[in-house]
């Protein structure tokens, strides 16, 4: 995985969860030091070996999917290209680059994550349904947390009656 700021391999990886939103930081040794991260100069395996007196058996760690390499099937744009230009390639990119694009929007829009304005006349009902679905999902979460199972069942029925997820066009 490459550094967020240059092409060197990242040695510091951090996952930040803030307000329920996950974002990732990947930095090379140089940029990590600049940002105040403590970067060990001796590989962790060597340090452990010194303590244990032997080289430990290293279990392969499953790699997280690198968002930079994600490619939009609609227009071929990669997430790395978007990060460089700040401009998306097609309407389908919004779906292709989730959830990263959601984080970008939330940051730029002061925390807003849902459209509440007008919709094209032909799709007005669709926007209403999406807003209603979000509201019902929030109520469902609250009902489950409060162990109000009858209310949760009723909310689930209402959600099902709204139909499937509307796809972005």
């Amino acid at each position: 995985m490459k550094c967020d700021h240059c092409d060197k391999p990242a040695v510091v990886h951090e996952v930040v969860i803030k307000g329920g939103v996950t974002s990732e930081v990947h930095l090379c040794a140089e940029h990590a030091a600049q940002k105040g991260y403590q970067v060990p100069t001796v590989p962790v395996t060597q340090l452990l070996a010194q303590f244990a007196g032997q080289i430990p058996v290293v279990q392969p760690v499953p790699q997280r999917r690198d968002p930079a390499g994600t490619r939009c099937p609609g227009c071929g744009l990669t997430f790395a290209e978007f990060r460089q230009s700040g401009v998306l390639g097609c309407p389908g990119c919004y779906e292709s680059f989730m959830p990263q694009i959601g984080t970008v929007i939330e940051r730029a829009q002061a925390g807003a994550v849902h459209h509440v304005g007008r919709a094209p006349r032909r799709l007005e009902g669709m926007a209403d349904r999406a807003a209603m679905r979000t509201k019902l999902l929030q109520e469902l979460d609250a009902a489950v947390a409060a162990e109000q199972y009858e209310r949760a069942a009723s909310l689930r029925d209402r959600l099902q009656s709204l139909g499937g997820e509307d796809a972005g066009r």
Partner: protein
Amino acid sequence: MRLREESSTVQVGPEPDVVVSSRIRLARNLAGFPFVGRASDAQRHEVMQLVTRAQLGGTFPQGLAWVNMAQTSPVERQLLVERHLVSRHFADSTLPRTVGVDAEETLSVMVNEEDHLRIQTILPGFRLPDAFDRARRFDQALEETVDFAFSPRWGYLTACPTNVGCGVRVGVMLHLPGLRYTGEMERVKRAAKDMHLAMRGFYGEGTEAVGNFYQVSNQLTLGFGEDELLRRFTEETVPQLVEYERTARRMLTESNRPLLEDKVHRAAATLRAARLLGAEEATKLLANLRLGICLSLIPDVSLELVQRLLLQVQPAHLARIDPSATDEDKGRIARASLVRRALRS
């Protein structure tokens, strides 16, 4: 390319002492096409055809006059920028692109700017609801024949994800010399930033606030409806900024009248006497003259005349009025002569 002899924005609208013009811009993209930057030239031409051939029905019975930018001269493109009918980015682009302008030149539609469509209305003075209605009517007329890229979650999908949502930019061009001369501008800029407002120069992003003219617009487009955005601007943001500016002007008048009078009368005298005038210098001097008129320090010049001159001294407008202004040096002579004549009559 045919444009009106005079832009309608030189007229004087409500709250003219501070609000020069009101502007609305809608960003829209056609469903089923890549965004402009990723589209092929064939697709860009197809988008142009779909938009320019769309039947707009009774709302725009005369339709729009479409100008293919590939067939315009640099001076014509500059003229469109000076009238704020197209952005500098659009004028300088080399992609296939076209702009549609209505008969009054209050509505312009850029096709293949950063988004497929940038629908823009501009009206003199403080008239945001009127400007919004006009842009919205075009938007609705067009959506009868084309499908816009839209997602229930994110709203109108735009090439830059920071414009997503309602895709509406509400803006006003404000004249803020009072805040500048009282040293309050940095504080206002910081407050604007905290309120997620963009403060840009005379010709938008990346340009300077020549003559203390500032374009103020919203940065947020998601999470509230267009009506709420318009209400905030019309009832809170703009009246507040107008009040700050008027208070600053009152302070200047009461506590530093010699400075104020010097700026205004020095500007008037230079404009009436100069033999050589650059575009930027003329803009700055006319802006100070404008301030003097609004504070009743200059009784013999009208605000309308200054508004008109502010546009006429820009390079492409000057070249249209006086064909002798073929280069910068001749332009400086022509500009000074034009201003002297106008202020004498």
